[in-house]
C-alpha cells in the first residue's frame, strides 16, 4: 500500500509526464487553448491510459512473455492500443452518449499519442505488477490533466497580454511551460522520490 502511494506521488508530481518526462507534448501545446477543451482531453487521457495499461499488461504477461515474443512488443502494443481506442469509441458512441459527447472527439487524437504508448512501456520497464501499473496509469493521467488545465488557464491570459510579435504563439508558450517545469522541479526529493 505504501508502495502504491509513492508510485502515485511520483507519477503525479515528481516525474510529471508532461513537464518532467516530455511525453504527450503534442496535445499539451495543441489542445490547451481553453480550459474546457483541456478538461475533456485530460479525462480522455486518464480513461485511455488506464485501459491501455490494463490490456497491454495482460498481453505482455499473458502472451508475449510465455511465448518468447518480447521483440514484438513495439508493434503489438501500438496495434492493440489503436484497436482498443476504436472499440471504446464505438462503444461509448452507442451506449454512453453523454460521456462520448464530453471526450469522444479527443479519443482518435490520442491513439498514437506517445504519452499512452510511453506509459505502457514504462509499466513493463519498471516491472510493475497489475495493481501498481493501474495506480501508475491513473496518477500519470491525473498529472497530465492538472498540468494541462493549469497551462490552458495561463494561455488564456497570454492571448490578452501585450507580447513582442516574434514571441507570440509557440515561443511564449514554451517559455511559460519552462517556468512551470521549473516550479515542478521543486517537487523533486519529495518523500525521497527522484
Amino acid at each position, binding site marked *: 500500500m505504501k508502495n502504491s502511494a509513492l508510485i502515485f506521488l511520483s507519477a503525479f508530481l515528481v516525474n510529471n509526464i508532461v513537464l518532467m518526462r516530455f511525453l504527450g507534448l503534442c496535445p499539451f501545446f495543441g489542445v490547451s487553448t481553453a480550459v474546457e477543451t483541456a478538461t475533456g482531453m485530460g479525462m480522455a487521457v486518464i480513461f485511455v491510459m488506464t485501459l491501455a495499461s490494463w490490456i497491454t499488461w495482460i498481453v505482455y504477461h499473458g502472451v508475449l512473455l510465455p511465448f518468447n515474443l518480447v521483440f514484438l512488443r513495439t508493434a503489438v502494443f501500438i496495434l492493440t492500443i489503436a484497436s482498443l481506442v476504436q472499440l471504446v469509441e464505438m462503444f461509448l458512441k452507442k451506449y454512453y452518449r453523454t460521456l462520448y459527447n464530453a471526450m469522444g472527439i479527443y479519443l482518435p487524437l490520442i491513439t498514437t499519442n506517445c504519452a499512452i504508448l510511453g506509459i505502457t512501456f514504462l509499466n513493463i520497464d519498471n516491472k510493475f505488477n497489475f495493481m501498481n501499473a493501474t495506480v501508475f496509469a491513473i496518477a500519470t493521467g491525473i498529472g497530465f490533466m492538472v498540468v494541462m488545465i493549469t497551462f490552458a488557464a495561463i494561455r488564456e491570459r497570454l492571448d490578452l497580454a501585450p507580447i513582442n510579435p516574434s514571441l507570440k504563439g509557440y515561443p511564449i508558450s514554451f517559455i511559460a*511551460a519552462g517556468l512551470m517545469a521549473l516550479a515542478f522541479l521543486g517537487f523533486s526529493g519529495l518523500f525521497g522520490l527522484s
Partner: protein
Amino acid sequence: MNRWNLFTRGLVKENAVLVLMIGLCPALAVSGTVRDAFGMGLAATFVLLFSNVIISIMRKKIPNEVRIPVFILIISTFVTIIDYVMQAFQPDLYRALGVFVPLIVVNCMILGRAEAFASKNSIINSILDGLGVGLGFTLALTVMGAVREILGNGTFLGMAIFGEGFKKSPVIFMILPPGAFLVIGVLKALINKYVKKETQ
C-alpha cells in the same frame, strides 16, 4: 521538383522540429547533451529512411483502406531493429535515451512523411526526402543539445570549453527539463524574428 530542393526542404525550410513543430517529445527529452541528441537524431533518420524506402516500393500494393496500420507496422519493424542494435552496440546511449527509442514509432514526423510523401513518390525521391527530414531533425536536436550542454555543463561532447570558475557553477537548470522548454522557445522566437521575414 529539383532533387536538391527535395533534400534541403526537409533539412531547413520545413525543419520538423524548429519550423513545423512536430516530433517535439524526443526533441525536448533527449537534447540534454550533444551525444544523446545526435544519437536520437540518427536513430530517427534510420527509421525514417528505411520506412520511406519500403513504403515507396510497396505504394502500389498497399490497399488504401488499411494503409495507416500497414505504415505503422513497417515503421515499428525498423524501430525494433534500431532498438536491438542500439542495445547491443551502444548500451550507454540506449540507457540515456530510455523509453524514447521504442517511442520513435509514434513520432508523427515519420508517419507524416510516409502518408504525405513516400506513399505517392518514387524510391529515389523518397530516399532524398527521408534523408532531408531525418537530418533536419538531427540538426535541430544537435543544436539544442549543444546549447544545453555548453550552458548547463560547460562542455561540448564531454570536452570542457570554459574555465574552472564556470565548471563550479554552471547554469545547471539548462540540462534539466525546464532548460529544454526555454531553449526551444528562444530558438523559435529567433527564427520568427530573423528567418520568417526573409521568406515573406
